[in-house]
């Protein structure tokens, strides 16, 4: 099949079972992590090269807008990790493939069990941060000015 | 008018089931062969064959090919030609071994040899007990044969023309020059010009309502030949398999009974004890089908309905093993392992688990014993005197050698395919180099193109399916397990009517060319109607009961008058019957008891 668009649309439309959705989620989470990773690596390098820039980005990450992304990232990493382990295990133990549906459910289950408290905690932190900002008279959506860091 | 393309090959094999592929494999070793099939080869109905392929390998118990030959002759109700049966049973051993060498994954005994099991009608001639002769690959033996042969054809680079629907034979005097086919994908006509033509197009179970046969089994090859003046041999003999799934006709292999399955009527009786006291449920198919039919007629169906039970639950089977003093027992696992496909069918279509519950079954139209007459090299006969049509071959279900006589023994069809398919292939390979390529007659395709245009454009009242349903009904009611003069006259009258409507009062929706399956189905209906009529006609004329042909008005076999093959031909719209004596060697006709 030719077009990317068609493939993507049909991948969404296909009424596969757990494995299909695990694959979709694995792929999307992998790409999402990668996107973040590249940003993150380049800006971490700034810790050495341009400490001020780095400090700014750390500050930036504290802002709610980014904190939401951070929660998403956490979700992506956790799911991707569990499902990655599932795939790896099944790859080396073909005789376990009988349990594939169950294993997909288990990795989702593990993900929810572990992510829920963490996500919740991160969310509470986020709210707290929001309140703190509000106390300083800022809204949640303000972004620290880069200029002040570069000064 | 669509385009006409021409291809030239030494030999043209029509049909890519077991028989066609086996022939192609051999013929292509020495000549340029085209295999033309209306289905992708692996879709052929050989793939549906379940139970097994018999050969007297003697892998677990004593057996020899002559016992196999006797069982075949007895099964045929003594109508089989015994020279051909000898060829069948002797070469079966070799053919099965050859299939194994080609890679066929037969089930194995612990000692590594091909596994064999019991099957209806196969016996140890001395003890009269069932013998383990059917070689099998679980319950998908036919599937494995078809796949293996197709694989070998790919390996040997055989030329395939897939989804080319052959619609006519080019006959030149007493020889052939090729066939005409429609490329299903484009609707174009193709002439396959060759020195030899072989038909291996399978059966025509679709003449009946309830059948184990595929939708594609419409007897095209037989009908085409018949229209080109080839006689049809023994058409009155059509096998009704005793155990088809109620209403659907899907086959439940005899292997189920081979594993110990029992037939029970509405009263819970094992009624086969009455009809075949010695081998009971494993009697020959015609015997069991009639027994079921009689039980049903006597109101002994399950809950008064039109079916009986086939019970292979370990509980029942082991009970009867115990009663019979046999030591073997079966378990759930045996069923799952040896009959996985059967279990799958009943679970899918009936929601019944054969390990827990009995299956509702009724006889189902299954196999054409008759067909295009051939000699043991698969060469087609022009008449009952044994003259040959040069370059024309047939093998498989479409042909009548005759090794099945009045009733085919289970597993023998697969043997027939590989043995006579191979013989056809060898004969073609050897002879094609010396044969001449006859020039194509002018406008070779004209008549069939005209017929197609007629069907495409005809503006009648009836849709093909309506005519087909009427044909199937009349064949089931009147030319089924039991027949009478009266019923067959009724069938003939209805069939004549249907033929007229088909010729003058039919309509189809699809006027296009690309994948016009509407048109091709209509054409196939023409073939079915033709063969149904021949069957009814030949059956009405045979005034005796023998094998698959059971007449209520002539309940006994009559060797004095009817130990002969019928040859039916059509001249100027009139049927003509001729007869050919049966070849009898070692086994004199005897009463047939199981």
């Amino acid at each position, binding site marked *: *099949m030719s077009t990317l668009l068609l493939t993507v649309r049909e991948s969404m439309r296909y009424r596969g079972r757990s494995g299909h959705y695990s694959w979709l989620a694995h792929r999307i989470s992998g790409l999402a992590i990668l996107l973040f990773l590249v940003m993150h690596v380049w800006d971490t390098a700034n810790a050495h090269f341009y400490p001020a820039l780095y400090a700014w980005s750390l500050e930036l990450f504290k802002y709610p807008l980014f904190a939401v992304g951070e929660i998403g990232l956490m979700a992506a990493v956790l799911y991707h990790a569990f499902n990655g382990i599932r795939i790896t295990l099944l790859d080396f133990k073909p005789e376990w493939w009988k349990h594939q549906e169950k294993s997909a459910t288990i990795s989702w289950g593990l993900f929810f069990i572990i992510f829920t408290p963490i996500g919740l905690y991160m969310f509470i932190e986020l709210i707290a941060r929001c309140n703190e900002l509000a106390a300083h008279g800022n809204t949640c959506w303000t972004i620290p000015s880069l200029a002040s860091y570069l000064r | 008018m669509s385009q006409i393309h021409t291809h030239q090959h030494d030999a043209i094999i029509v049909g890519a089931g077991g028989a066609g592929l086996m022939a192609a494999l051999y013929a292509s070793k020495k000549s340029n062969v085209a295999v033309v099939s209306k289905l992708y080869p692996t879709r052929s109905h050989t793939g549906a064959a379940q139970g097994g392929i018999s050969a007297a390998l003697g892998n677990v118990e004593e057996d020899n090919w002559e016992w196999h030959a006797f069982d075949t002759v007895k099964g045929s109700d003594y109508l089989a030609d015994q020279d051909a049966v000898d060829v069948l049973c002797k070469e079966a051993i070799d053919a099965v071994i050859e299939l194994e060498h080609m890679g066929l994954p037969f089930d194995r005994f612990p000692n590594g*040899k091909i596994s064999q099991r019991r099957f209806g009608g196969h016996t140890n001639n001395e003890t009269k007990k069932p013998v383990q002769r059917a070689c099998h690959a679980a319950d998908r033996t036919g599937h494995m044969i078809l796949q293996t042969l197709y694989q070998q054809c790919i390996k040997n680079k055989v030329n395939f023309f897939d989804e080319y629907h052959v619609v006519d034979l080019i006959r030149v005097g007493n020889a052939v020059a090729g066939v005409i086919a429609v490329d299903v994908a484009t609707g174009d006509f193709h002439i396959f010009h060759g020195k030899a033509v072989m038909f291996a197009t399978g059966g025509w179970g679709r003449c009946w309502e309830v059948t184990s046969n595929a939708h594609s089994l419409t007897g095209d090859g037989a009908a085409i030949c018949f229209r080109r003046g080839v006689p049809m041999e023994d058409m009155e003999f059509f096998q009704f398999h005793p155990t088809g799934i109620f209403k659907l006709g899907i086959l439940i292999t005899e292997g189920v009974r081979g594993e110990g399955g029992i037939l029970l009527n509405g009263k819970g009786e094992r009624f086969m004890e009455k009809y075949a006291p010695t081998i009971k449920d494993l009697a020959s198919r015609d015997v069991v089908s009639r027994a079921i039919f009689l039980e049903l007629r006597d109101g002994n169906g399950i809950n008064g309905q039109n079916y009986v039970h086939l019970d292979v639950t370990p509980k029942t089977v082991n009970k009867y093993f115990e009663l019979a003093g046999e030591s073997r027992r079966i378990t759930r696992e045996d069923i799952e392992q040896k009959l996985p496909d059967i279990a*799958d069918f009943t679970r899918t279509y009936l929601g019944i688990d054969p390990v827990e519950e009995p299956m509702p079954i009724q006889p189902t139209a299954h196999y054409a014993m008759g067909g295009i007459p051939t000699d043991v090299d698969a060469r087609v006969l022009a008449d009952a005197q044994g003259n040959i049509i040069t370059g024309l071959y047939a093998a498989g279900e479409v042909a009548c050698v005759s090794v099945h006589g009045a009733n085919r023994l289970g597993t023998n069809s697969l043997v027939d395919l590989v043995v006579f398919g191979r013989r056809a292939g060898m004969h073609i390979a050897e002879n094609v180099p010396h044969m001449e390529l006859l020039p194509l007659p002018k406008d070779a395709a004209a008549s069939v193109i005209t017929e197609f245009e007629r069907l495409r454009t005809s503006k009648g009242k009836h849709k093909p399916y309506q005519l087909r349903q009427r044909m199937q009904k009349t064949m089931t009611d009147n030319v089924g397990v039991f027949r009478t003069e009266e019923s067959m006259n009724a069938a003939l009258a209805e069939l004549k009517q249907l033929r007229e409507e088909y010729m003058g009062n039919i309509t189809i929706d699809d006027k296009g060319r*690309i994948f016009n399956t509407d048109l091709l189905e209509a054409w196939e209906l023409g073939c079915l109607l033709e063969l149904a009529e021949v069957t009814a006609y030949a059956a009405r004329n045979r005034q005796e009961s023998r094998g698959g042909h059971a007449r209520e008005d002539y309940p006994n076999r009559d060797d004095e008058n009817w130990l002969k093959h019928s040859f039916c031909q059509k001249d100027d719209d009139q049927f003509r019957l001729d007869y050919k004596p049966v070849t009898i060697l070692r086994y004199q006709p005897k009463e047939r008891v199981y």
Partner: protein
Amino acid sequence: MQVQLRIRRYNPEQSNKPWWGDYTLQNVNRTDTVLDLLHRVKWEIDGTLALRRSCAHGVCGSDAMRINGANVLACKTLVSSFSREGSNQAKIQVEPILGLPVQKDLIVNMEPFFEHYRSVLPYMINNDPAPADGRERLQSPEDRARFDDTTKCILCAACTTSCPSFWANDKYVGPAAIVQAHRFIFDSRDQAPAERLQVVGDTFGVWRCRTAFNCTNACPREIEVTKAIAEVKIALATGEV
């Protein structure tokens, strides 16, 4: 019961745009198959509907289709699977399998599929002379069992056309071809496992499998397709077959 049948139609002789055909069928039995319904449409309503079918009981592999979103054989799919117990309504949507060029209605071009099939050398290769006694090559039941599952394949393409990797890139040999390769690689009588492994170990071989399991779920013969693929992967990694 009543069934609302929606069929993806396409007829290049009339228009190069596919369209949806809607048909309402009355008096349907719960135990009817979707193939029965398609036949009813074809025979009673619109003869131009084109589809492949032959055996009508799931053994020939002609009629793999996408029904209500997932690949199945029409002849093995019962209406009851789309309607709750007790309900007398069902909605069924039928489309051609995805990833092979549609030629007309539910008919796709199978050639690319068979090309992949042929690429894995799907035939027994054994150049040793046959046993001197003229009999079969021996094989233990245990050795026979190793590839039993993959001998069941009927080449229906339900698996390959359910695979997201194949949709994305039809150069991927696809699960069906790997199943066929598996059938020979693990047959103790065959002498060419290395050649086959070379083919399926290629860039467009097993490594394209992303373990989505759609193939396993789609296979009407209940072949453990993904398991077979994994066994091939392991054979490639260890060199043991």
